[in-house]
């Protein structure tokens, strides 16, 4: 994994279910279109993430006021990342609980969205990889 940006992103609340996972680096995975949030607090706690608009081109969730307030930014200044997992039927992205990053301030929060969003949206990893080339 190569370091694309060595500054630390702080999740003030940790990620959902793991409050002590607070400091992460966002790395580009060399072999795919995925990036990886590598935790600096817990060894091996690494979350692959994908640009959710690559999974659902119409993905523009409305963020609760509490999210824009915590991150001190308006919705259009925030970077959205979908946590990606490998299930029995291939890779899936979590569009229900994206990671929201204020890139300028290096702060982030994982939120659970209101409304109908897929918890396991299928991701075509091979297709994404081809997009890069």
């Amino acid at each position, binding site marked *: 994994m190569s370091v694309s940006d060595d500054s630390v992103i702080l999740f003030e609340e940790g990620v*959902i279910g793991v409050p002590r996972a607070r400091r992460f680096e966002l790395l580009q995975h060399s072999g795919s279109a995925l990036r990886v949030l590598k935790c600096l607090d817990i060894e091996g706690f690494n979350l692959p993430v994908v640009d959710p608009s690559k999974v659902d081109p119409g993905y523009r969730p409305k963020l609760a006021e509490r999210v824009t307030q915590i991150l001190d930014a308006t919705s259009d200044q925030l970077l959205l990342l979908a946590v990606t997992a490998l299930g029995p039927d291939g890779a899936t992205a*979590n569009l229900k609980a994206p990671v929201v990053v204020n890139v300028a301030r290096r702060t982030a929060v994982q939120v*659970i969205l209101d409304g109908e969003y897929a918890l396991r949206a299928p991701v075509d990893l091979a297709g994404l990889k081809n997009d890069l080339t």
Partner: protein
Amino acid sequence: MLMLTRKPGESIVIGNNIRITIVSASPSSIKLGFEAPPDVSIYREELHREIVEANRAALGLAAELDHEETR
């Protein structure tokens, strides 16, 4: 676990700035109202658990990516 009995319309205060109110109750369910600062997240437990599990599943893919790279 602390247990308190409350009636509809009554509340419970947690700390200085969280209030939970019993809005209504029926034999099969109760409706709760929450007042809390914006930095406090409030979720139904089953949804929260699903997200925790999705995060955990992601760790497996990360391990696999690592493995790919070292090959």
